[in-house]
C-alpha cells in the first residue's frame, strides 16, 4: 500500500505531455486525432480528461500507455521518455482500457494472477484474494469473467489495473454503461485509490463525474485541449450567472426581454435561461404563462457548471455531444 505523499511531492509533475500530435491512417484517409496537446499531471491528483466521444481522450491515453506512437511531441512518465523506454514507463502504470478486454474464459482469481504476472508481480492465492476483497469480488473468485455482471466486470477491471500496485492509474471511461448504483461504487473505489496516494487519470464524457471526482480537468474537443484547471476555477472564469431550466415552451424573443436575462438556449428538450436576477426572471416567466392561460409544470434553478464551460469553449451543448 502506498503512503500519503508530503505536500511538496504532491505538486511534483508525474506525467508530462508536450506538443503531442497523433494521427490514424495514411494519405487521404488520415485522421488527426490529437493536435499539439500539452499537459502536466501532478503526483497524487485525480485528473480528468473531459470531452465527447472521438475528441481524442483515448488517443491521448494510448500515447501515455505507449501503445500509440505520436506523430509529434512526447510523453514523460516520472521523467522517463515513453517513446524511448516504453517498457520501463509501462511498469509504473496501472491500466484499464475502454473496452473491457479480459481473457474471459479465465476465473476472476486467475485473471488477477495473470495480469500481475505481466508486470512480473507474482501474487499468491492469499494476496489475490485480499486484492479482490478490496473490490468486493471475494465471492466471485472462482467465477469465469464472462459470467460477471457489468458492474462486477468493471470492478474486476479496476482490480486488474492495480494488480501490479502502480503509482499511476489510467482509467478510460471507468463508469461508461454502468447503472447509477454501480457507478457510485466505482467512484468510491477511485476515491479510495486516490486516498492511498496514487495518481489517477480518468477520461469521461460526464460533467457530473468530472465535477464529483477530479481535482483538475482538461477539456478536449476535436483533438485539442481547450482548457485545463480545477472545475471551480473553470466555472468561475466563465463569469456566468445562474441558469433557470424548464420545459415550458415559450418563444426565445419573449424570454430574452425578461429582466436579468443574459442568454437563452435550448439544451435537449429544456429551455435554459442564464440570468443575473433569477427571481425576477422567474416572475416574468410566470406572468407570461398566466397570460397564455398555461402553467409551468417544472422549473429548476442551477448554478453554472462544467457543461456551461464546455458550451462556452466549444459552442456545443451536452445534448449535441451525446448525439455526436
Amino acid at each position: 500500500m502506498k503512503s500519503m505523499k508530503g505536500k511538496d511531492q504532491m505538486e511534483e509533475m508525474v506525467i508530462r505531455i508536450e506538443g503531442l500530435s497523433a494521427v490514424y491512417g495514411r494519405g487521404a484517409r488520415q485522421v488527426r486525432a490529437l493536435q499539439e496537446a500539452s499537459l502536466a499531471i501532478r503526483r497524487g491528483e485525480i485528473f480528468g480528461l473531459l470531452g465527447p466521444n472521438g475528441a481524442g481522450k483515448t488517443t491521448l491515453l494510448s500515447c501515455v500507455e505507449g501503445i500509440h506512437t505520436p506523430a509529434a511531441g512526447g510523453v514523460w512518465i516520472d521523467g522517463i521518455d515513453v517513446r524511448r523506454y516504453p517498457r520501463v514507463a509501462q511498469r509504473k502504470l496501472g491500466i484499464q482500457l475502454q473496452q473491457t478486454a479480459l481473457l474471459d474464459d479465465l476465473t476472476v482469481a486467475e485473471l488477477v494472477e495473470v495480469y500481475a504476472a505481466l508486470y512480473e508481480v507474482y501474487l499468491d492465492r492469499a494476496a489475490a484474494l485480499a486484492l479482490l476483497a478490496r473490490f468486493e469480488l471475494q465471492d466471485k473468485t472462482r467465477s469465469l469473467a464472462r459470467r460477471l455482471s457489468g458492474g462486477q466486470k468493471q470492478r474486476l477491471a479496476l482490480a486488474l489495473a492495480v494488480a501490479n500496485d502502480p503509482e499511476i492509474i489510467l482509467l478510460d471511461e471507468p463508469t461508461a454503461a454502468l447503472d447509477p448504483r454501480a457507478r457510485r461504487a466505482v467512484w468510491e473505489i477511485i476515491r479510495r485509490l486516490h486516498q492511498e496516494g496514487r495518481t489517477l487519470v480518468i477520461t469521461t464524457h460526464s460533467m457530473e463525474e468530472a465535477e464529483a471526482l477530479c481535482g483538475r480537468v482538461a477539456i478536449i474537443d476535436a483533438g485539442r485541449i481547450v482548457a485545463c484547471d480545477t472545475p471551480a476555477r473553470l466555472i468561475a472564469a466563465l463569469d456566468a450567472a445562474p441558469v433557470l431550466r424548464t420545459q415550458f415552451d415559450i418563444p426565445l424573443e419573449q424570454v430574452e426581454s425578461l429582466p436579468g436575462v443574459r442568454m437563452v438556449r435550448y439544451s435537449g428538450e429544456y429551455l435554459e435561461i442564464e440570468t443575473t436576477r433569477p427571481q425576477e426572471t422567474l416572475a416574468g416567466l410566470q406572468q407570461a404563462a398566466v397570460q397564455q392561460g398555461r402553467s409551468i409544470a417544472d422549473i429548476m434553478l442551477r448554478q453554472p457548471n462544467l457543461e456551461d464551460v464546455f458550451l462556452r469553449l466549444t459552442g456545443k451543448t451536452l445534448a449535441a455531444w451525446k448525439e455526436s
Partner: protein
Amino acid sequence: MKQFLKLTKAMFLMHVRNRTTLFWNMVFPIFLLVIYRVAFGDGQVGAVSYMDWVVPGVVVFNILAFGLLGSGTMMVEMREKGVLRRLHASPVAALPLVGSYLLVNVLIALVQCVLVLGFAVVVFGMHLTAAGVLRALPMIIVGIVTFVALGQVVSGVAPSTGMAIAVGQILNFSQMFITDMIMPIDAMPAWIQDAAPYLPAYAVAQLVRPPLLEGTFAPNLGSHLLVTAVYALGAALLAAGLFRWSPKR
C-alpha cells in the same frame, strides 16, 4: 520463467475452456475417422489397408486445420476483443508472449494427435511401434509449427474473425484432397501430382506417414523437410511483419 509459465497456464486454460475450440480440436477428428471407416473401410492403398493409410493423413489434416483455423482465429479474436491491446500496454516482452502461445498450440495439437492415434489403435486395431511413434513425433511437431505459422499469416491478413475463418477454410480445404492426406495422390490428375510436392500439407504428410506405418523415416526426408522449412520460416517472417496489436481503424 515464472512469467512464461503463468502466461502458458492462462493460454492453456483459455483453449480448453472454449467449447467451440474443444469440439473442433478433440471431437471432430474422431468423427472424421469414423466417417472414413464407414465410407472407405475396405479399400487398399498399395500394400496397406485404406484405414491404416488414412490415419496419419487425418493426423496431418487435423494439425493443418488446427493451425490455419484454431490458432489463427484465436489470435484474431484476442485482437478484436482488445486483449492484445491490453497486453501491448503492459511491459511483457514479445518472447514469453509468443513463446507461451506457440507452446500451448503445440501441446493442444499434440493431444489431438494422441487422441486420433489412440482411437485408431483401440477401435480400428491399428498397429503402431514405439520406434515409429518416436520418429513421427518430431515430424508432427515440425508440421504443427509450420501450420501455426501459416495460421498467423492468415490472422495478420484477416480484418475480422469471420474473414480469418473464411481464408483459413479456403487454405485448409484446398489442400485437403490434393496433398496425399485423405486421398492417395496417385488418383489425382498428373498436373496435381506435379504441383502437390510444393504444398506444405503434402510435405508434412510424407514426413509423418512412413514412421507411423512402417516405423522408418520418410524416403526423401531432406527434400520434404526443406519444403516444410521454407514454408515455416517464410510464414513466420511474414506473420511477424503482418502482426498488429489492435484492429485496423
